[in-house]
């Protein structure tokens, strides 16, 4: 048997690395040779985390080559799309149907609007043999602990791998935090039974409505000497010098209230104040 490849992808804090340790241990207990390699990205909550696991009779490299993963398991929809190139053309895709917006994806500091990709299995279905969009977070929560969502995902993954349940359960018992073994094993079995869901049935966990702040930029022109410092320090280009080298507020709506211009105004001429807040929805899609 040639080596099988599994790619696990998620966001920091979801337990991707723990899940990959469980899979590697389960494969070891099934007398396979296993190699595992993980990239934490920014190894903190919110950063992209991916782990490669390869197992088989013999395994040379720990890295799954592009377009050769038998299973891509994503703990979040955008991460599924991000790592799709690793999935073999006839591979299986397991996705937890939830959305976590990476902080870096926020294109607008005021509305937190994001170009988050629509959760639609049709966008990937033509590329893979099986798409399993499961409500792992919802299942885990209903079992009593939403943190076991990674075990639910691994249960779903196990359907596509030749590792028996005993090895999985021993591996789970070894790695999960003491006291949560039974819960995680139950979550694992729930994942084995989980059916595909329709994305619209999943409650939107990621993006709460937020208050949009607005700021007012007041320039006291009788104090301002048009020195030109504030336009150079404004990160949102709200301020500019006109053709006569006079300070003008060109885009008050873009102000994020950082108040750098205030702090660096030698003439005490700029005042930033908070305007009326407005509730906006969390953007996308």
């Amino acid at each position, binding site marked *: 048997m040639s080596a099988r490849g599994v790619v696990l992808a998620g966001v920091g804090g979801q337990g991707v690395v723990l899940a990959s340790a469980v899979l590697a241990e389960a494969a070891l207990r099934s007398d396979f040779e296993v190699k595992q390699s993980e990239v934490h990205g920014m190894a903190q909550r919110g950063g992209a985390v991916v782990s490669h696991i390869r197992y088989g009779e013999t395994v040379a490299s720990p890295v799954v080559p592009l377009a050769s993963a038998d299973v891509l398991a994503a703990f979040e929809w955008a991460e599924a799309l991000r790592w799709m190139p690793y999935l073999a053309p006839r591979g299986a895709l397991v996705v937890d149907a939830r959305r976590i917006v990476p902080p870096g994806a926020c294109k607008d500091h005021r509305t937190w609007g994001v170009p988050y990709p629509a959760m639609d299995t049709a966008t990937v279905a033509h590329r893979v043999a099986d798409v399993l969009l499961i409500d792992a977070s919802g299942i885990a929560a209903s079992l009593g602990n939403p943190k076991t969502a990674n075990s639910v995902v691994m249960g779903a993954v196990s359907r596509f791998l030749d590792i028996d349940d005993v090895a999985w359960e021993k591996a789970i018992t070894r790695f999960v935090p003491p006291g949560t073994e039974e819960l995680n094993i139950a979550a694992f079995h729930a994942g084995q039974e989980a059916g595909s869901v329709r994305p619209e049935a999943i409650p939107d966990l990621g993006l709460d409505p937020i208050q949009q702040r607005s700021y007012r930029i007041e320039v006291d022109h009788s104090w301002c000497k048009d*020195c030109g410092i504030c336009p150079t*320090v404004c990160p949102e280009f709200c301020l500019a010098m006109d053709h006569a080298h006079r300070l003008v507020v060109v885009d008050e709506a873009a102000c994020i209230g950082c108040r750098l211009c205030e*702090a660096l*105004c*030698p003439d*005490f001429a*700029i005042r930033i104040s908070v305007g009326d807040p407005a509730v906006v929805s969390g953007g996308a899609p």
Partner: protein
Amino acid sequence: MTTTAQVREHLRGWAMPHVLCPGCAHGIVGRAFLSAVDDVGIDPDQMAVVAGIGCSSRLVGYLDFCTLHATHGRAPSFAAGIKLARPELTVAVFSGDGDGLAIGGNHLIHAARRNIDLTVVLFNNEIYGMTGGQAAPTTSVGAIASTAPRGSVESPFDACKLMIGAGATFVARAAASEPYTLARIFADALDHEGLSFVEVLSDCPTYFGRYNKLGSGPEMLAAITRSDNRIAIPLAGKRSIPTIDPPDLPPGVELGTLHREHRPVFTGRAGGAT
């Protein structure tokens, strides 16, 4: 950092706008100082600021505290007198590199030697701004000034080392381009019991910037942060990493709190209440 509205509470609004040139960072320093006064929670009526002569010293005229515009270079001595007579006041000195290090050098070092409980802010723009751009004791070797048309040939003072040597018990250096750090350091300096000395790297676009082709306010402020071509580079006490920094890059200047110790203050020894 307090808001402009809060900071303006401490300004004599009727005197504003101030006389300082466009792009002169002294105003930023003044603002950070006012912010620190608020942060430390000093009653404005219990705050005295003394200044000598120079652009930096003009700033105190706009501060709504007990202020004294004293004779050239003698601000630390006037301040010492205030502290001895009224030890309950918080006393600060605003001084420039010319006022504090040239004509007032002796007054400054003896205030440090005696560890009088003052906060001395030294605005270093490497030049005499008010009087027409003459070379100062802090002017870098090679820098153009009206009295050094082919570049200064004298070694500049490292004001912080000077003050550590003289016995100041809190010595820090900060940059006008970093107002938040500056305000934090001012707050620490105001809190410190004993002579606190804060050298602030400021700019003078009108003379130093123009003579040395360093641009105007925004460029000079950015240069302080970037640390290349910055004013005050040839101050001693520089730090560079020869294996990493390219050899032609001027070494950076040490910023931050450089020295801190506890020593009995003069006012206490002289029988004052502090």
